[in-house]
């Protein structure tokens, strides 16, 4: 007889009742309360063994529902906020969802989508005698933030999602926060870390950076994560000093030297770490030396559970954190190679003992037959002291097919140089360090650049 699978709840209560709390915009919930309370109105048993679509707006509600559902649902689909309604039917069909947890009063999902059971999540935890028995090894489905078309359904389980967790001993003094949504891979990692050790401050898309930072500070945040785009927004908010974390983590996009230096200057006492992770490949490694890229010694290292290789120019990762596959009609497109490793599609260039990310394989701009990675040029532009962030994109051109153009957001404060002078300086520094075809044809100073719900720079051409 196999023993019952160990659920997330079992795992976080293994050493006794959890000491931490979850902080949402609306208030705080002590994790220990979940032992005898429910966000699902006590209707958990109706969801046992089912394929459950979790589609709620509020992150705190989602955080509580996930903790209830693992070990109970056969499958749990984490629908991120901002999922276009047009994609919902394909997600439901792909995951064979037969139940959903939704916001009270929500009109879209439910019976009209062919889902038999709809449970309205409550506004707050309500006391219920809940049986926390784990009977299922719940499959967790994450949706990738694809740049085009419908999201893919990525299959994980608690084992693959917690493979990179390391020390799980309770650490009540650790207060995590993440600017990611916890229903995306980067945020989910922080959620799982925080539940095993400490507390978690959740973000809210409607909340400005200053408000979020003030809330994180009030909760005593010590460890905080976001994408480089999230962090640039914090540095631009003028309120970065509101918090004084010990650990600052970047993931989800390439961390260039400028953002790493900016964070080191803003948080001189913190460890600034950038992490490579993707929904498909899982967490691969963490770099703590404050430099962009990663040590080449990580490649082909023997004896490590995470195997990194560069094959045909892209990074391949074989790890217990790898996803198991894509669910549904995308199954054949899962980027697992013959050796079992996941092809991340991220192009790597090795210079001496360091490996650098050149950008996504698909994000290449073609200038007269020559390949240009936007991130490489952005890194040069971002190194200018007056630049906070930039976006390099393709512009159609009758002569070379495309040219490279850059949109630049200036750093806050002080008196910036005249736009024409700054453009000249930026072009000059690009010319010094880049091949001519990589130098932007035009540079435009803009007030801001769009960052997606997933915390990544929106690339219209990608």
């Amino acid at each position: 007889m196999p023993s019952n699978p160990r659920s997330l709840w079992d795992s976080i209560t293994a050493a006794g009742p959890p000491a931490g709390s979850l902080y949402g915009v609306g208030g705080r919930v002590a994790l220990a309360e979940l032992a005898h309370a429910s966000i699902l109105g006590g209707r958990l048993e109706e969801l046992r063994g089912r394929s459950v679509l979790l589609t709620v707006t509020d992150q705190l509600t989602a955080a509580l529902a996930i903790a209830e559902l693992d070990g109970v649902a056969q499958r749990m689909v984490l629908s991120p906020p901002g999922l276009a309604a047009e994609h919902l039917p394909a997600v439901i069909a792909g995951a064979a969802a037969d139940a959903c947890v939704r916001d009270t009063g929500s009109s879209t999902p439910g019976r009209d989508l062919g889902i038999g059971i709809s449970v309205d999540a409550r506004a707050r935890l309500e006391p219920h005698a809940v049986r926390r028995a784990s009977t299922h090894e719940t499959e967790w489905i994450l949706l990738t933030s694809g740049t085009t078309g419908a999201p893919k359904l990525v299959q994980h389980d608690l084992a693959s999602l917690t493979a990179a967790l390391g020390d799980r001993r309770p650490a009540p003094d650790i207060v995590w926060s993440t600017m990611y949504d916890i229903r995306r891979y980067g945020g989910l990692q922080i959620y799982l870390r925080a539940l095993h050790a400490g507390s978690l401050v959740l973000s809210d898309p409607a909340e400005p950076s200053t408000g979020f930072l003030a809330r994180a500070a009030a909760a005593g945040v010590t460890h905080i994560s976001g994408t480089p785009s999230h962090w640039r927004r914090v540095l631009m908010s003028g309120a970065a000093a509101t918090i004084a974390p010990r650990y600052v983590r970047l993931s989800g996009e390439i961390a260039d030297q400028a953002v790493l230096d900016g964070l080191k200057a803003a948080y001189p006492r913190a460890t600034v770490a950038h992490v490579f992770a993707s929904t498909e490949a899982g967490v691969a490694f963490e770099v703590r030396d404050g430099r962009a890229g990663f040590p080449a010694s990580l490649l082909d290292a023997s004896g490590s559970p995470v195997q990194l290789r560069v094959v045909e120019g892209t990074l391949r990762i074989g790890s217990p954190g790898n996803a198991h596959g894509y669910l549904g009609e995308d199954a054949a497109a899962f980027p697992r190679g013959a050796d079992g490793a996941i092809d991340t599609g991220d192009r790597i260039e090795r210079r001496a003992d360091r490996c650098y990310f050149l950008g996504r394989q698909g994000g290449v701009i073609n200038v007269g037959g020559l390949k240009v990675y936007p991130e490489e040029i952005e890194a040069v532009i971002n190194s200018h002291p007056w630049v906070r962030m930039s976006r390099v994109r393709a512009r159609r051109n009758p002569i070379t097919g495309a040219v490279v153009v850059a949109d630049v957001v200036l750093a806050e404060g002080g008196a910036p140089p005249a736009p024409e002078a700054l453009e000249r300086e930026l072009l000059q520094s690009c010319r010094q360090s880049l091949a001519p075809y990589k130098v932007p044809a035009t540079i435009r100073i803009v007030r801001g650049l769009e960052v997606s719900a997933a915390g990544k720079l929106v690339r219209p051409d990608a």
Partner: protein
Amino acid sequence: MSQFEQVASEQERKLAPLSDGLKLIECGLDSLSFAIIVARLEDSLGIDPFSAERAVDFPVTFGDFVRLYEGFAK
């Protein structure tokens, strides 16, 4: 004309003296330089004659190039 000179200096190319009859292929600029000139002219003039629905005769001389933009601006 200033765009030609500006781009030539940026690309560190020697620009031949510009005249109506000068063949673009001999003016000293490469295709990347032309690509940049076209992009910047679109920014400053708001027009890109090459994107027009009707086919354009690709300019051969500097004079052709100027007339292409003049004709489009009218």
